[in-house]
């Protein structure tokens, strides 16, 4: 059951209803945006619950159990609570910066999904520079973190914001360089075409030894760092900076940061799925199920990391990126280029 067919049918019936083509396109775009937003909001709420459950079971606890089946509605209850809470604005904050930071974080987190294919034909807009667009948009988050850190007028928040800026900039480099071999082999920047280049399971980029797995590992590490999760959760290192950049935020603003963080995590995993794990490709089941399944497996991996590892120190974090990941990813790129050129491996 392909969802794309349903949407196509709806679009067709809308086009046949006699409205001018401009209006049809506008309505279709708005509807697509709303659908993506709604789906992602649900996914984010689900991920928060899932994270709590994973952590609870790793730690031999129950986790949320009261609201709904095994507490599945817990996040919704929490969100409602956060909306009701008083929105505290401390006295000496830089008001516009303080106000806009969570909104930018929230919007930036969702923008990337314009170019991510959820399934066969399930994409808002198949940009021909898809991957470039996504990388540019995901980096947007750092601006909001920096704004939050600066605007809060709090030393812990400032340290957190600065840390996140340094961290995201450092890990952006290996992340992009690790993606380059994929683009090299797929020969396109479009997300859909990258997925189509991995039609068979042995064509998945993760299985293209040797550059594939290495690129995948680098990407996952850099992605973990980019989403500020343990072992790279320095910007909000609870034990050092209390809560880092969101120390002064409360109520709905905090909820926006929180949801954005989970959406970002999903984004990183969705990109990894698209680039390395063949995106929606898979037998029997509908394509969007494959996409979601693969992504959630990766999300689980990130959660598993978080509940296992301690945190790195800030200088070690930088060292790891610049002295290890960056050289490794460049070496990987060179290997991939050599392979492509020599046509030893012609998948």
């Amino acid at each position: 059951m392909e969802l794309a067919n349903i949407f196509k049918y709806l679009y067709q019936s809308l086009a046949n209803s006699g409205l001018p083509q401009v209006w049809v396109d506008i309505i279709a775009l708005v509807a697509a945006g709303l659908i993506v937003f709604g789906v992602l909001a649900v996914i984010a709420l689900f991920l928060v619950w899932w994270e709590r459950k994973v952590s609870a079971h790793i730690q031999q606890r129950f986790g949320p159990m009261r609201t709904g089946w095994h507490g599945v509605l817990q996040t919704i209850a929490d969100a409602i609570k956060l909306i009701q809470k008083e929105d505290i604005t401390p006295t000496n904050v830089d008001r516009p910066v303080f106000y806009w930071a969570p909104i930018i974080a929230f919007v930036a987190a969702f923008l990337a999904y314009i170019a991510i294919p959820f399934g066969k034909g399930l994409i808002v807009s198949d940009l021909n520079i898809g991957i470039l667009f996504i990388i540019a948009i995901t980096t947007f988050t750092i601006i909001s973190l920096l704004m939050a850190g600066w605007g809060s007028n709090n030393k812990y928040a400032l340290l957190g914001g600065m840390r996140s800026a340094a961290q995201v900039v450092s890990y952006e480099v290996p992340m992009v360089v690790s993606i380059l071999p994929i683009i090299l082999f797929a020969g396109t920047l479009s997300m859909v075409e990258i997925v189509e280049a991995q039609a068979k399971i042995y064509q998945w980029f993760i299985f293209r030894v040797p550059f594939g797995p290495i690129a995948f590992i680098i990407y996952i590490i850099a992605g973990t760092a980019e989403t500020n999760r343990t072992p790279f959760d320095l910007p909000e290192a609870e034990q050092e900076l209390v809560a880092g950049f969101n120390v002064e935020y409360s109520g709905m603003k905090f909820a926006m940061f929180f949801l954005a963080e989970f959406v970002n995590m999903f984004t990183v995993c969705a990109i990894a799925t698209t680039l390395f794990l063949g995106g929606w490709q898979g037998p029997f089941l509908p394509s969007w199920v494959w996409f979601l399944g693969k992504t959630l497996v990766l999300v689980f991996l990130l959660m598993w990391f978080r509940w296992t590892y301690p945190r790195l120190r800030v200088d070690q974090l930088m060292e790891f990126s610049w002295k290890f990941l960056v050289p490794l990813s460049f070496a990987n790129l060179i290997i991939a280029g050599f392979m492509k050129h020599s046509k030893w491996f012609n998948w």
Partner: protein
Amino acid sequence: MTASKALRTEEFLVNMGPHHPSTHGVCRFLLTMDGEVVIKAVPYIGYLHRALEKICENRTYPQCLPVLDRFEYCTSMSCEYAFCLAVEKLAGIQAPERAEYLRIIMVELNRIASHLIWFGTTALDLGAITPFLYGFREREDILDLFEMTCGQRLTYNYIRIGGVSRDIPSQFIPKAKEFIDKFPSKIDDYVKLLNENPIWVVRNRNVGILPPELALSYGVSGPVLRGSGVKFDLRKDDPYSIYDRFEFDIPTGKYGDCYDRYLVRMAEMLQSTRIVKQALEQLPEGDIKAKVSPQFKPPKGEVYSRIENSRGEMGIYIQSPGDSKKPLRVKMRGGSYNHLQVMPEIVKGGKIADLVAVMASMDIIMPEVDR
């Protein structure tokens, strides 16, 4: 000319605490920071001051014990033990042999429980949340044993002047043996999680190095001192009670960094299980308490008794006026106080994250510092 054009940087002050997730209570550090680097750290104490010494001076000797429970609440048994040893020394009371064994079983189990708290909070301070829960899981088993015996999980009031308050229940020995048998495999889990984990190693190795000379000059004791390579343990070097009957080793570190302190404590937990095992095997039958009146008056004099607590030397000094049911002066000495004092020396120049790591490895507990 270059100087004027250079970017102007500025040191800034950060109040770390008194309510901060990793200061283990209400310790406050005034940090002078240059970006992430700590230039100067000044500890401010006293937020948890409850005048315990003064309260003790207004209580009869048996009534002091519930107060002592609150002195260092992670190892309440040790506090009671130190106090009872002091009073017994003063009044010349000899506790029955069974009581001595029970005391040692309890104190050593309490040492494991305390080290488990340390293990959990240390991992938590360095960002690993799961070991915290694992440590507390095993601690629960020990607390169950305590609750079964004396009825409380934290403020035991179990060790009394002249013995212990109650005999152990019949299920105690099998349950304690079960715990002792399964505990090493649990330690194995912790070791797998952290010991060789590269992140853990880089966070702890060569961080917060405490040279032995500095440690001795600050009066540092316990696992922190042993982590610096000084083999000093009151249980061996100044054996009190019946510690000379048990076989156990004293683990020591080599470099005096956080990682050595970590290893020393992990090894100490296993040594404690050895002691408990031997004590359970040797446990004699007999009385559990010498008769001591609740209103008794020790003879005039003063006494200082010290024991090896999980956080170093714990000493109780008592001055008795001779004609009163209440002590004239009680002074408590906890290891954490000295550990906190030595911290500014060893965190200088480190990152703020190192400060957290050092603080965790020192295992400071604020009620012991502020009293």
